[in-house]
């Protein structure tokens, strides 16, 4: 128990001294994860769409060649970036560029480098998710669209992609949450995100564990908030579970004007006895009808 209280005190102490540093780190992490996930999704979407352009033996050779080439390039990209650790990719690209260009080219800002690396990584994962999302849509949807004369582009934009995007929403969420956590490896190129501040702060004092506790709580809070938000967005996308009947039937329009001696109008004032009598009458009538059948 003492230890827990001690931990609480240490956390408060750390937060008092370095709270704004931690918050700055959180901000950088969030900004990097959001921007990189967005760009990554766009890369993935483009790859997924290019990857699923159909071609048949009847198509002219240049078209078939081009589409095959595109598929090979995308495949290579996906395999390369999915198959190597992001921390290594960061080092490779960040130091590789000046190395190969003889120091004439380098990343002007840390942000540019970090966003580039995380984006192309996310893109590699999203490319496969989007492709999966597109091919998981019932082929009947494509046929229905084709049958009313839609072109491939029209079919994709009006019918397939809206459904595919809904289906890959959980994947986008997944990638975003992975990015919130995995951007922590960007400290390797000196990008100051949330985790980098832990390293910086624990370099000044030696409160490793309290600082790590702050980081744990911070990351968990971020990811929980976002998974909640994502669920909410998905629900919104699904729309309402119910729908309204639109009464355009001429017969039902006259329902309110139907008149019967026993019925009167809804505005009539009647005695309680009278209402009872009507109720009894209706019951009897229903009863006799059932009996008659």
């Amino acid at each position: 128990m003492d230890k827990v209280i001690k931990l609480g005190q240490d956390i408060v102490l750390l937060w008092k001294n370095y709270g704004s540093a931690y918050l700055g780190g959180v901000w950088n992490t969030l900004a990097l994860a959001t921007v990189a996930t967005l760009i990554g999704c766009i890369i993935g979407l483009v790859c997924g769409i290019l990857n699923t352009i159909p071609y048949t033996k009847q198509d002219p050779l240049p078209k078939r060649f081009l589409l095959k080439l595109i598929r090979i390039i995308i495949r290579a990209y996906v395999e390369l970036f999915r198959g190597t650790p992001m921390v290594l990719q960061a080092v490779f690209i960040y130091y590789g560029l000046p190395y190969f260009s003889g120091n004439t080219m380098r990343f002007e800002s840390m942000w540019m480098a970090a966003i580039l690396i995380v984006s192309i990584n996310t893109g590699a994962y999203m490319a496969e998710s989007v492709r999966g999302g597109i091919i998981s849509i019932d082929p009947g949807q494509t046929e229905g669209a084709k049958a009313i004369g839609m072109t491939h582009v029209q079919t994709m934009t009006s019918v397939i992609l809206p459904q595919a995007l809904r289906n890959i929403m959980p994947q986008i969420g997944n990638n975003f949450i992975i990015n919130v956590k995995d951007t922590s490896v960007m400290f390797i190129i000196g990008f100051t995100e949330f985790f980098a501040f832990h390293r910086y702060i624990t370099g000044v004092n030696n409160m490793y564990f309290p600082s790590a506790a702050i980081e744990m709580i911070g990351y968990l809070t971020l990811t929980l908030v976002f998974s909640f938000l994502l669920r909410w967005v998905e629900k919104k996308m699904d729309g309402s579970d119910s729908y309204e009947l639109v009464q355009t039937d001429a017969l039902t329009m006259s329902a309110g004007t139907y008149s019967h001696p026993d019925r009167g109008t809804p505005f009539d004032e009647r005695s309680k006895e009278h209402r009872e009598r009507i109720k009894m009458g209706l019951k009897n009538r229903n009863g006799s009808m059932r009996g008659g059948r």
Partner: protein
Amino acid sequence: MGETILQINHLSKSFGTHEVLKDIDFTVQKGDVTSIIGASGSGKSTLLRCINLLETPSSGEILYHGDNVVGRGVNAPAYRSHVGMVFQSFNLFSNMIVLENCIVGQVKVLKRSREEARQHAMHYLEKVGMAPYINAKPRQISGGQKQRVAIARALAMDPEVLLFDEPTSALDPEMVGEVLSVMQELAREGMTMLVVTHEMAFARDVSTHVVYMSDGVICEQGSPEEVFGNPQKESTKEFLARFRSN
């Protein structure tokens, strides 16, 4: 007889080494209601899908008003917009409400204004009795209702000929009637229709032509009286005998 809309010459289709359609010849004229009957696997649906170019024929030609639509350089989407199709599995766009299902093709393909498309769609939705459900999503309505919307969607494109691929086969028995009566009404109004069906009563009573297919060839064709009343081929007799008891 009216003008010829579709003429199919020597149409063949193979999946790998399996030849599903063998040298099919037949014509569809304006106002015809042609029923294609036959056992499962006889190539009926494949024929219909070839006509709408959802399957690419292996050889032969399909003439639409005299122009061949098979082969390279043909604008398949433009052709398909004149030939409506109703599927066994409805294939309504599940991301759109009923009304939008009937509007989207008119706006995107025929370039109609949204308002014009909406009125046109409403006209046909009323005709099939689905006007009260325009705000429903496909997953919220029954099979028979879906199929009626699918018919309205196809009609809203003002097709010259409407293809039905077993439109009642995926329906519960009590829903078959509502779809068939819509189709009967269309036939009565002079819509040109090509119907692949297992509903023999519909083929006999509603259609002007009956085509019996067996093993990828057209075995026998003629008026309903001829095919049902006095079948010539042995296989036709055998096939029809299965429905006699009903």
